[in-house]
């Protein structure tokens, strides 16, 4: 029978001891920071792709369509490998390490963040588009009748209303994003899962270590779902929106989670 090594398990789930290992401490920081940056990049790209897809200009529409088609139609892990290894070996871009003060941002982290963000943009595009299309066309007409251009009307009238529709699925996307960063392990970017993998390579305790790893992700996504609930109820109160699902429904509904892309 397998002997469960409790001392390794506790050492790696208890933050003060786990964080003595820089692989875990830095890995956690990288996971959180990369998630935020990649999600932000995804929102920006998604907004442009959505506007492109709805554009009157055919080339913009095609560009947006191809972007969405490719990045939703191929696995993220392939996109990430292509970007990091493929671009590296052809010297299209070598992803040199970036040194900012005392911190070194490795090329792998840059490539991973970029791949996650660009991939996310393709998914956000559909979310943003659905949000914009949920707004009564009369809003755009009213804005135009007041002398506003399309851009100004979008920015001031349509997008602020669409944001209320976009924010709940955006929160779910971010939840997925934190888990999906683990795919960066294929390019050896030093995020949380990579950290646990490295520790496992050293001491070979995959059962204990990967349970510990899963608990770290669970804590991250759970904290996020509380923040998300707070944000959404704030939105609802201010703008007369319907209340979202309760905390308990959110944690145990099991309806989200697209898994690896």
């Amino acid at each position, binding site marked *: 029978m397998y002997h469960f090594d409790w001392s390794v398990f506790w050492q790696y789930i208890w933050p003060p001891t786990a964080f003595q290992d820089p692989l875990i401490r830095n890995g956690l920081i990288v996971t959180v920071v990369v998630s935020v940056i990649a999600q932000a990049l995804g929102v920006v790209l998604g907004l442009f792709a959505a506007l492109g897809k709805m554009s009157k200009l055919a080339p913009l529409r095609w560009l947006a369509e191809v972007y969405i088609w490719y990045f939703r139609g191929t696995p993220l892990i392939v996109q990430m490998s292509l970007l990091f290894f493929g671009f590296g070996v052809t010297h299209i871009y070598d992803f040199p390490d970036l040194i900012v003060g005392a911190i070194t941002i490795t090329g792998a982290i840059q490539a991973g963040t970029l791949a996650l963000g660009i991939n996310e943009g393709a998914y956000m595009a559909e979310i943003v588009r659905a949000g914009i299309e949920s707004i*009564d066309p*009369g*809003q755009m*007409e*009213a*804005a*135009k*009748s*007041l*002398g*506003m*251009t*399309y851009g*100004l009307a979008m920015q*001031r*009238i349509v997008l*602020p*209303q669409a944001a209320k529709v976009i924010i709940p699925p955006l929160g779910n996307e971010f939840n997925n994003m934190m888990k999906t960063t683990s795919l960066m392990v294929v390019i050896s970017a030093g995020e949380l899962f990579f950290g646990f993998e490295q520790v496992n390579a050293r001491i070979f305790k995959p059962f204990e270590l990967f349970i510990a790893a899963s608990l770290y992700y669970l804590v991250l996504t759970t904290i996020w779902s509380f923040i998300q609930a707070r944000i959404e109820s704030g939105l609802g109160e201010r*703008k*007369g929106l319907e209340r979202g699902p309760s905390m308990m429904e959110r944690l145990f509904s099991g309806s989200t989670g697209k898994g690896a892309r």
Partner: protein
Amino acid sequence: MATPKTKLKDSNIIVKAEKVNKYFGSLHVLKNIDLEVRKNEVVVIIGPSGSGKSTFLRCINHLEKINSGHIYVNGHMIGYHDRNGRLAEDSERNIARQRAEIGMVFQRFNLFPHLTAIENIIEAPTRVRKIPEEQARADGERLLARVGLVDKRDQYPNQLSGGQQQRVAIARALAMKPNLMLFDEPTSALDPEMIGEVLDVMKELAHEMTMIVVSHEMGFARAAANRIVFVDEGQIIEQAPPDEFFAKPRSDRTRLFLSQILH
């Protein structure tokens, strides 16, 4: 064929439509519409639903494109300009500039639900006309007072009744100081008890503004209009001052329509 001019000289003509045709697919919704509206005139367009009257109104500020003909507003052709002797669609910015001079009130109000009453009103003056917010607010409050809603300044549209929302929408359009107001069935979405308060505001306005109103409110038409235009199946059937129009309509279709709505 000579190119049509893109400017009009007579500054007393606020709207001039010439042979305007409009299709939705194969449906011919506006057929050779000719109409002239002079400064300070109040024109009420009536007609059965689906007759094209709302579509025509929406063509006047280029919310709908026309397929042929020309519409001049405030002396300039709307939506198009002359490019080396041919008509080209205007840039978005130019269209927006022209629309800023044309107020429009919609059947469904179309207030911005994420903004309060006063914010709805000052949005375009501050963002389009770049009027300082303080001044826009002062002007906006005067307009709210004029439509009798100064105490609702900080309410969101969903906290207002339909009649109140439509009055805010009128104030919002007036805030741009337009020299033409278009009303697209402004009371059709209202509960009966709220129609009066909106019509009262419109009657007040009718003393001092050029207005084109698409409406089924015959009482308003009688009281405020200088001219009634009857539209059926995309054509202007007849137009006359209200007294004449209601007393002795010339066409059978007008008589039939009036008998149906006036019972």
